[in-house]
């Protein structure tokens, strides 16, 4: 009983752009430069690139391979991709993370995405024109504290857009958006990067050249390389930026044909994300903000490593000082963030739709509306409270990723077996994958992930026992409820399957 794929990708370029779009998110432009400044400046790139080579690329190969393997058995979500690869009955319950994380992250991520959409609108409407820096800051605070109905309106529009695009399927919706959104994002990024780097100090304008900010961001503090905290930050950034440990890569790859290349596709999508993050991401926000505000003010603002404050509360004012070009710059910056966001949130919906279609025969369009409804309900606490937002971000957007990645690499390299796994990676490959990656996937990446997880245990315990508000507790309750609900659905789906749904994988 081998099943056929219900839909697929229209073109290879579309798949690579969608995968890159899945990876490229708001963090590429906001979080990366903030993390670099917080963790040794230019020296941060060393642990960052080491983590990319030892953990990022191997996990990309693993997740793409697992996805294509599952697709061969008509499975497009991780519970039953894991089930097809591991013989023990419990693997599918680890795969629940690949549904749970996508739903929980989408619940708060779509809200962030709606900020970029609304700020694009405000840029076109000239809302920030004539405002002082304090007024823009106050506008931002008033917005996130729901002093106006706009956050809710833009959030609903954003949810509707996501759901509608998802309901049009992979090639008809997601791929089309990626083919338009990714080139535009890169174009906007290049224009803004050139503007940032070529910024000139002038009386009444910028106080520093753009190069000063670039120099500050890239000046290395090599002593930071010996800090465990810096390595954890670099590993976290690689996870975050490549969308690893979520289950969305598996889902996209599961729609590949069984002999189609994954090695070159994975490398192309992964490196495209790195270009957007390391080249464009480091050349916009920091050079422009240091140009106008100076090093001390910007260092204080990015402390903590999110960059959200500068992105939404500072840049609009700076753009408004640029006259007519400022309107275009605002539209490009927030349009870029919106495209980065929506190509990622769309990827979060597809595993849920795939799971419902594969196991409960629910059409993709119906699945998309179910996903949209769940995101709406789960997102309400995030809109109402920063505490709920933080809980979702920490438990689903950070810890669940590490657990899932640790489990999947053990399953792939040690349970499924590296012989079969290596063959899977190389089947149909358009490039020769260096043999060293076989060793890295089997030994280095699992150890690396286990060390990161063990290193995070004190923080997990601290956060689990930390007092929080009613909204924070509501978020925790909803997250546990969501995980249990998905696990129950997996149990029911398994009961509905035949006795041997994966005849070839169990031989």
């Amino acid at each position, binding site marked *: *009983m*081998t*099943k*056929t*794929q219900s839909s697929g990708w229209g073109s*290879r*370029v579309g798949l*690579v752009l969608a995968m890159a779009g899945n990876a490229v998110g708001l963090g590429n432009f906001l979080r990366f430069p903030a993390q670099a400044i917080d963790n040794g*400046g*230019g020296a941060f*790139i060393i642990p960052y*690139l080491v983590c990319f080579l030892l953990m990022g690329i191997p996990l990309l190969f693993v997740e793409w391979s697992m996805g294509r393997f599952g*697709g*061969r058995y*008509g499975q497009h979500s991780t519970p039953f991709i894991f089930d097809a690869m591991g013989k023990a009955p419990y693997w599918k319950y680890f795969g629940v993370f690949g549904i749970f994380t996508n739903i929980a992250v989408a619940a708060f991520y779509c809200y962030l995405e709606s900020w970029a959409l609304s700020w694009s609108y405000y840029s076109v409407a000239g809302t920030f024109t004539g405002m002082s820096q304090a007024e823009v800051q106050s506008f931002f605070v008033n917005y996130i504290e729901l002093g106006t109905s706009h956050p809710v309106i833009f959030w609903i529009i954003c949810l509707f857009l996501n759901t509608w695009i998802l309901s049009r399927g992979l090639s008809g919706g997601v791929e089309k958006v990626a083919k338009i959104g990714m080139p535009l994002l890169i174009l906007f990024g290049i224009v803004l990067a050139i503007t940032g780097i070529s910024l000139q100090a002038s009386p009444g304008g910028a106080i520093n050249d753009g*190069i000063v900010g*670039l*120099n500050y961001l*890239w*000046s*290395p503090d090599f002593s930071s390389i010996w800090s465990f905290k810096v390595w954890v930050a670099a590993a976290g950034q690689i996870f975050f930026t490549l969308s690893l440990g979520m289950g969305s890569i598996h889902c996209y790859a599961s729609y590949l*044909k*069984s*002999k*189609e*290349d994954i090695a*070159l*596709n994975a*490398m*192309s999508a992964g*490196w*495209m994300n*790195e*270009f957007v993050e*390391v*080249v464009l991401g480091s050349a916009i926000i920091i050079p422009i903000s240091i140009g106008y505000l100076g090093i001390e003010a910007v260092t204080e603002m990015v402390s903590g490593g999110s960059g959200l404050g500068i992105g939404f509360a500072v840049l609009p004012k700076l753009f408004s000082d640029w006259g007519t070009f400022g309107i275009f710059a605002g539209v490009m910056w927030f349009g870029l963030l919106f495209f980065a966001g929506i190509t990622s949130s769309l990827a979060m919906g597809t595993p849920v739709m795939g799971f419902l279609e594969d196991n409960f025969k629910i059409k993709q369009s119906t699945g998309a509306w179910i996903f949209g409804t769940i995101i709406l309900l789960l997102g309400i606490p995030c809109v109402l409270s920063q505490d709920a937002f933080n809980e979702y971000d920490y438990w689903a957007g950070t810890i669940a990723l590490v657990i899932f990645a640790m489990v999947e690499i053990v399953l792939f390299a040690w349970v499924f077996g590296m012989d079969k796994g290596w063959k899977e990676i190389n089947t*149909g490959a*358009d*490039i020769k994958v260096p043999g060293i990656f076989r060793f890295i996937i089997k030994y280095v990446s699992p150890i690396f992930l286990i060390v990161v997880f063990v290193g995070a245990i004190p923080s997990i315990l601290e956060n689990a026992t930390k007092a929080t508000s009613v909204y924070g507790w509501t978020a925790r309750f909803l997250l546990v409820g969501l995980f249990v609900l998905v696990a129950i659905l997996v149990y029911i789906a398994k009961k509905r399957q035949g006795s041997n749904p994966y005849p070839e994988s169990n031989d």
Partner: protein
Amino acid sequence: MSTSALILIIVTWSSVTFATAYFFYKILTIPSKPEHDSTIEKSEKD
């Protein structure tokens, strides 16, 4: 700009840009494989 920052920028940006362009160029130029999907074939046999 300090020499160390300049060296890091040049090395990192050029390597990342080269790798991105190289792999995407290969995506654009390698011809697609003929349509042959064992999954679908098996499904048809079922």
